[in-house]
């Protein structure tokens, strides 16, 4: 059954939007940390996207994406009232949330949206939540207001210093860790190099660090192993064993390599899409 888009909010024009989807069966079950696999149209591929928020009463879920290739570009062409052909979920293990004092939730780029749902879960469990968010510049910063509504503190970093602290999220995180000896857990979601940098930073502080891995997925239900990652020397399937893992145990080098497996095909597919859209326009 196609899933209707009830609301579209353009967060960064042409790059990132937030879609509110009519999916009560998923909203009922989804917990922070879960994701969906969706297929935009008949010839589409299956892609994973984190559930950024849910409203079980209204029967909706929210997804946020960054246009990085053909499928997300096609998603961006959809408007309110349009439908996504297939949305499957909730998938993955929910975030392990327990009272542990202070939690620092770090989000980079579109990862801030995924982090937002998890931070909310930690707050609901009674934890003190500090969020650290970062982007290249102020215009690309997501969810600053949304996070301020419940987080105990929002630390903002931009690479060019146009908003908050100048630097990377790791600079913001270092400041928090140096100041707060009682941090029970760090959660990091964003591009792989960012998660790796966070894990490297927290290691000497000896703080539990959870990362949400975004490997290539097909089915999302443990059938194929496309999403396999090496954690603590063992092969794990991110879709069913994760997507969250101990950041200090993840083999990020292998993870980065495997994400490049279909680069030439991805570029070809996107170029073809732009060519056809160009002809239409």
């Amino acid at each position, binding site marked *: 059954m196609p899933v209707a888009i009830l609301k579209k909010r353009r967060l960064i024009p042409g790059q990132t939007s937030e879609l509110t989807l009519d999916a009560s069966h998923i909203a009922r079950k989804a917990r922070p940390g879960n994701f969906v696999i969706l297929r935009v149209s008949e010839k589409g591929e299956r892609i994973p996207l984190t559930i950024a928020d849910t409203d079980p009463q209204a029967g909706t879920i929210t997804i946020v994406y960054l246009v990085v290739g053909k499928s997300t570009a096609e998603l961006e062409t959809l408007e309110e009232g349009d439908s996504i052909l297939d949305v499957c979920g909730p*998938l993955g293990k929910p975030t392990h949330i327990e009272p542990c004092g202070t939690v620092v939730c770090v989000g980079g780029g579109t990862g801030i949206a995924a982090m937002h749902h998890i931070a909310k879960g930690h707050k609901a469990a009674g934890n003190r939540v500090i969020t650290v968010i970062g982007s290249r510049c102020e215009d690309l910063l997501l969810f600053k207001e949304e996070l301020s509504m419940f987080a105990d503190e929002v630390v903002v970093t931009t690479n060019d210093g146009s908003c908050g602290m100048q630097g990377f999220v790791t600079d913001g995180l270092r400041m928090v860790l140096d100041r707060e000896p009682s941090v029970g857990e760090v959660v990091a979601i964003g591009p792989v190099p960012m998660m790796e940098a966070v894990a490297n930073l927290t290691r000497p502080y000896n703080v539990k660090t959870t990362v949400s891995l975004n490997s290539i997925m097909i089915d999302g239900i443990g059938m194929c192993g496309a999403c396999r990652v090496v954690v603590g020397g063992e092969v794990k399937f991110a879709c069913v064993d994760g997507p969250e893992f101990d950041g200090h145990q993840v083999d990020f080098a292998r993870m980065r390599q495997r994400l490049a497996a279909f680069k030439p095909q991805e570029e070809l597919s996107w170029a073809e899409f732009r060519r056809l859209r160009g002809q239409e326009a």
Partner: protein
Amino acid sequence: MSANAPTEKKKGKAVPRTAMPEQPASVRVTNFNEVTLGYTPEMALTEAKRCIQCKKPLCVKGCPVEINIPGFIKKIVEGDLHESYRVLRETNSLPAVCGRVCPQETQCEGSCILGKKGEPVAIGRLERFVADTFMASDACEQLTGTHACSLEHEGLKVACIGAGPSSLTVAGYLSSLGIKVHVYEALHELGGVLIYGIPEFRLPKEIVRKEIEAMKAQGVEFHTNWVGGKTITVQDLLDQGFNAVFIGVGAGLPKFLRVPGENLIGVFSANEYLTRVNLGRAYNFPAVDTPAYTGKNVAVFGAGNVAMDAARTAKRLGAERVMIVYRRSEKEMPARLEELHHAKEEGIELMCLNAPVELVGDEKGWLKSLTVQKMMLGEPDESGRCSPIACDGQFCDIPCDMAIIAVGTGSNPLMTNSTPGLELNKWGYITVNEDTGETSIPNVFAGGDIVTGAATVISAMGAGRRAAKEIARRLLG
């Protein structure tokens, strides 16, 4: 008709089994069209006449869903294909599929009396012929003789989790009795392994779709993108008032080799590779969005039907060299003889008595070669097959830029973990009462690969039929 029996008997021994036309190997490796082309009406009639109409047919005993084989063949001889199809559909919801993918040589045809001294009747090919002829026709009409398919038993409803062969059998059987069936499937297409696993050139997807359309016409409701254990649990279904639940989620968790280099780029589980190509139609990329990977030198590990499917798929996607790397010898290969024969015709190399010891990559993590070790055969093990023994120091490096691992699957815990009180065996498969298919939870049934481990389409259908009969007995008395 029975007056003809003695002459038919003589003819049966004299007339050779009718061959089935197929695409020549040189042509078919360039496309994904079906390899075997099916009987013409004349061929079907000739072959049907070979059946000697045994009074106590052994073939029926050999069929896991107990098709009335002499019955449907007799109707072919009489020229009543309509009635022949009705006889098939009485016990088999997917005749066009089974006629193609069943290992008939070990089932119905393996039991055929003609096979004792000559060649058995080509039951599978005849089943396929009749089903293909009536594919597009209305299922209700075939079953009930009327076009209407009204629900006879208001208020009775059964849920199936998974839409593979076992669940489809349950759905087909119960809906034909007027019981409402809802099927919940995790993927976006229905059919399970028939859709994501078995390639188009062995089982055209159009056939599966039509069989499922026939079930929809019969009143079965399908829900795609509902993941058993995630979107919906067994408890949810019982709470919603379903009278019984059937779990048919298969055994989809791929096994890996556990050798160094398995996570290099270019190394795939057969499930991933086949899902990309079959479900994602990656052979049409970039007209479709799912990409597949095209290797030049492809190694496939394992020698079952899945390995054959993966190897033949890689060949069709343009691989120059495709090798089946297997620890034992050709004689021990578990694949169907027909598939092995087709693979060899298509130029797939068999590299027997070789075990992978390492997959070697370049500095960017892409697979570039494979190290294998020579093996020799020792004493038969508990499976009755000779166990392979490594030959000391005999290693060999082979250039290889793509590897597909087809060494079997295990139990996927997604469903079983979410069902408290569900009894499992030590391998994680669901324990059931062998006569009824009922699990440790009352009115919750299970069948197919999630009970037996990876087996055949038809054995999953047999399990579905057993459970469906028990469900019907309880609900209808």
